[in-house]
């Protein structure tokens, strides 16, 4: 365990430093405590989060002919395919909303979430070259990788505005709480990522499991169908999926659909926070061995 001592003297047993000496800035020793999260160090390195996000955004569409247009094209094409298959062919209802808008409003948070989850799950392996050569709080890596797709999300809001004008759908005042829904999606992705990425360092199986997990999760979320299609007696269990709340929240805020059950959402948010805290402890616990086994 490595501890930064800002003002307090080192909390470790051992020979006391000579009187004239100042306290060590850093003490390096094997980690003992389970709950030393050292979040202050993460805050100290906040600029690195910015630079890693900036790098990922910059590098992503280098050497592509269409460049950043892909950020918009991808959800639009997915929306078109969904509309053809699920609306025209399968006749899935969309609670009275035009299906393209209905799907696109869900694809915004869902694409963000699936990107954030897969990126953070792979993040430690993807940045192995940094982990073995430089010190910084390792938490920075999954953190930065959940922020990166948020940039895409912001850009892909633009075509939604066009769609809403085209179909004559107007947003509600709920738009103001949209950032909270996004935050919930971010924290959910991060807390799962905190579990997946350390395991991934040790077992590359995670690289195969994650896409499958994301696919399952999409079917368990109201991306292509409305919640009203879920049988009544499953509804409560279903809404504990935080992404169900997030997607319903987006549709409510943007399209004026019936609001999600905020009480249930609060419970699922609390579960996510618990998962996040446990994930932090787990991540910190695994952190010390990253450089040795990655």
């Amino acid at each position: 365990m490595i501890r930064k001592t800002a003002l307090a003297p080192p909390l470790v047993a051992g020979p006391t430093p000579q009187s004239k000496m100042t306290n060590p800035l850093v003490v390096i020793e094997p980690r003992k405590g389970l709950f030393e999260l050292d979040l202050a160090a993460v805050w100290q390195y906040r600029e690195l989060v910015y630079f890693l996000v900036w790098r990922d955004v910059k590098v992503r569409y280098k050497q592509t002919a269409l460049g950043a247009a892909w950020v918009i094209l991808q959800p639009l094409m997915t929306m078109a395919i969904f509309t053809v298959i699920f609306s025209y062919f399968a006749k899935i209802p969309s609670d009275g909303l035009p299906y393209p808008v209905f799907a696109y409003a869900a694809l915004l948070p869902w694409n963000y979430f699936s990107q954030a989850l897969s990126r953070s799950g792979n993040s430690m392996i993807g940045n192995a070259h940094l982990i073995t050569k430089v010190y910084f709080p390792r938490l920075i890596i999954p953190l930065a990788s959940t922020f990166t797709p948020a940039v895409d999300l912001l850009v892909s809001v633009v075509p939604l505005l066009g769609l809403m004008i085209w179909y004559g759908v107007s947003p509600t005042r709920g738009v103001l709480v949209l950032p909270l829904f996004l935050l919930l999606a971010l924290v959910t992705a991060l807390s799962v990522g905190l579990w997946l990425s350390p395991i991934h360092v040790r077992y590359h199986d995670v690289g195969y499991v994650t896409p499958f997990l994301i696919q399952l999760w999409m079917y368990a979320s109201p991306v292509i169908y409305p919640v009203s299609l879920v049988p009544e007696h499953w509804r409560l269990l279903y809404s504990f999926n935080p992404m169900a709340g997030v997607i319903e929240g987006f549709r409510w805020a943007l399209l004026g659909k019936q609001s999600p059950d905020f009480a249930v959402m609060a419970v699922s948010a609390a579960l996510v926070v618990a998962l996040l805290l446990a994930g932090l402890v787990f991540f910190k616990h695994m952190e010390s061995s990253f450089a040795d086994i990655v």
Partner: protein
Amino acid sequence: MSAIAIRVESISKQYKIGVRKYRHDTLRDQLMDGLRSLFRHNGRPQRAGDTIWALKDVSFEVKQGEVIGIIGANGAGKSTLLKILSRITEPTSGRAEIYGRVGSLLEVGTGFDRELTGRENIYLNGAILGMTKREIDRKFDEIVAFSGVEKFIETPIKRYSSGMYVRLAFAVAAHLEPEILIVDEVLAVGDAAFQKKCLGKMQEVAGRGRTVLFVSHNLGAVQNLCERVLVLSHGQMEYLGNTYQGINAYLGTTTVSGNGYVDLSSHPARWPGCLPLLTAVRLLDASGTPKGRFLTGETMRIELTFDPVIPIDHPKFGIGVEDCLGARVFSLTTDLSPSVLPPLRDPCQIICHIQELPLTPGRYTLSLSAGTFENGLMDALGHAVAFDVELGDFFGTGKTEANLGRVLVKSLWERTER
């Protein structure tokens, strides 16, 4: 008394070699293993054979403003020690206290992204090394000037030559301003002129009262920069103190001198990626007696045992003679010699004759290489064998003197009338 910068107290680091060899790389293996180890009291491996101690019980102190060199053979634990002090990995036991901001440079260009431009990489790399954006803004022009790639600063670095890449990377690193600088073998890259520039920068850093921990195989650079050296051998501290003596101690541990014979088949000084074609080296005198101690002016025969593995039509051999600081004194190569070796098919002995050893007294080492005209270098070992030279009658006059330099050359003198 100056203050302590780093205090290391019996630091040890154990690696599980099983993990390194991907024994538990899939979940299934681990589940099986997990079931077996369920009843063990903790996760630590029980059998000694599964682990190695990369560092064992290393303790030392570094004072503020001191420049310390860390030397040792490959696998001696140098990098592990630096990784622990840079907080990249944790020690298995022991502890270290660090008084000051640490900047560590275990590699140049960590985190460089090939798609980004030089400018963008300066910011990214700087941030990764721990600089703030304001700090980088302030030093940006200086970094660019130091790197000498001004013209290409807006070009993606994938279009850079490897030399430009290294120069840019080192330029960023050189502008870190930590109180304690930890440097691994980064000077081994780049051309001679740039290496000199880097060494100059390091000296400048050291001169400003910074503490520097410096790992290098370049013993000349170590001698030049460091006040003290720490010699590691098999994870343990072999010596700590005076640079000159430390370097001699190091050369004494890596090479078996005395009988002038070294088995090279699995020698730690073999370069990475080389085939073990040179399997042994033996030093003989004129009568064919192996020995590790020669007299100046004596005949020396260097006998290499060579196993070609595949038939070699045009073999090439090279022997470099280095002094106790690792500096090359002279080289002996088949390329430059009038001798022609026949094609080699089977294991054989290759013998190089030195008629009159021109070296002044001291400890020397030999670096060996073997290759072919077709394939180039196939095997190489640095400082593979050591030998001592004692004062002998080189000039055939019965007279000699100390402090004549490194090499003796016979000369004739005359006076001409004009």
